[in-house]
């Protein structure tokens, strides 16, 4: 069971959150993609073994969705690679 730092509420237990999975990029404009690209964007996932960006919904508290970097092998939550923020990190 993880402890997740919510930018609004602080360090909170996992039970307050719902995991929304890998942080896929914001929905692209389908008209700008080929059919194949669109299909891939729907189903394919990086499914990284190691540090990946993922979204959590703090549903049993502030209701915000936040993005964290978490190692899928150790479950350690860490800053992003090279200190980069997650894709559209929570405000």
């Amino acid at each position, binding site marked *: *069971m*993880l402890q997740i730092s919510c930018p609004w509420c602080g360090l909170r237990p*996992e*039970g307050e959150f*719902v*995991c929304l*999975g*890998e942080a896929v990029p914001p929905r692209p404009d389908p008209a700008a993609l080929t*059919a*194949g690209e669109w*299909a*891939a964007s*729907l*189903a*394919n*996932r*990086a*499914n*990284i*073994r190691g540090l*990946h960006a*993922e979204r959590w919904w703090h549903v049993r508290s502030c209701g915000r969705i936040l993005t964290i970097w978490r190692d*899928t*092998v*150790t*479950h350690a939550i860490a800053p992003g690679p090279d200190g980069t923020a997650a894709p559209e990190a929570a405000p």
Partner: protein
Amino acid sequence: MQRFSFLSLARNALSHHEGWHRAWRSPPLRDTYDVVIVGAGGHGLSTAYHLAKEHGITNVAVIEKSWLGGGNTARNTHTIRANFLRDVSIRFHDVSVKLYEQLSRELNYNILFSQRSMIDLIQSWGKLRDLRRRSLAMALHGPAYDLIPVDEVRRRIPAMGDLAGVRLPPLAGMAHPEAAMARHDAVAWSYARAADARGVEIHQHTEVTGFLRDAHGRVIGVETSRGTVRAGQVALATAGNTSHVAAKAGLSLPLVTRNLQAFVSEPVKPIIDVIVNCPDVGLYVMQSDKGELVIGGGTDPIPSYRQGSHVATFEDVVASLVELFPRFKALRMLRQWGGAIEFAYDASPIISKTDVEGLLVSTGWYGGFKSIPVGGLTYAHLIATGAPHPLAEAFGLDRFTGLRFLLEAGTVAQR
């Protein structure tokens, strides 16, 4: 291959079992094979066996980063079943069960295959509807999945407690007599021994670190921790890590890896004869031949390769267990573990060529122990002939490009 039998056991007993041969060789790694299979788990070894047996392709190396059978083959709860919803899934897994039934004799290695029946407990009306639909679909194709009244459920699972007042009282059950368990490690070992006997090479402790590509991008081999190996085709059987390995070839797949945990009790005398599965609460329990209760539930709710235990999910499973079996409250958990299993976007398997020529995948097994024989049979067919096996035509990656999903899960289970 040295024959196993009671007689050979007795004969070898006289010589203090000094005369047994190695189950598989440890040959030197050569630089070229017709086929390299990545992953010496159940699926990889079964594929190698079928390549040799049905297609005469024996110039095959199975390359394993760790010890053979050490991935999900070592980490599952050894259940075999064919209770599915879609026609293709039912047929596919029905063949798997039938292959399993013959496996000990075919491979001359007792995998302790035991058809003990599975009883799915129905604890909500929605689940009754879902499972009845499954049951009637299965009746079209062979495997039995019969509605039994709750009295019958109780008679067949006498260890269940007094059900008065339980949170979700069982309404009925579905009995699946073909369901079985088998000694999971032995399945890998038996295939390894049989494949080896047909000339396949198994290379343990050899990790694939990259792919060898030609000018057209075609995969023509693998880079390993022990050197470069060329191959006509490279077939991944790396359950749990397929995305990770495929990414080395620049391939993205519709997969998510999650942790599925399980645990066993200390061994007790026989008390549960069937495999009990409770989809409404996310719990299954059976008893191994050794006497341990083998218990599991749903997958953990986060992407994970940790192979551990998610405490909240674990506690849910245990709470459901003692709700239905209060007499197990004083029994103790001896050991727990987790396996990294892969879900395809539509929760059906993938046995397919890929966009990268020369690279094939068998994945999305979300617990593929039950499919090892048929998975190997059909994957070998694809590798050998270039065309999908008739049983696995629906399992190609092309279904995702056309968004024609094979949604096995159907409606989502609700609590």
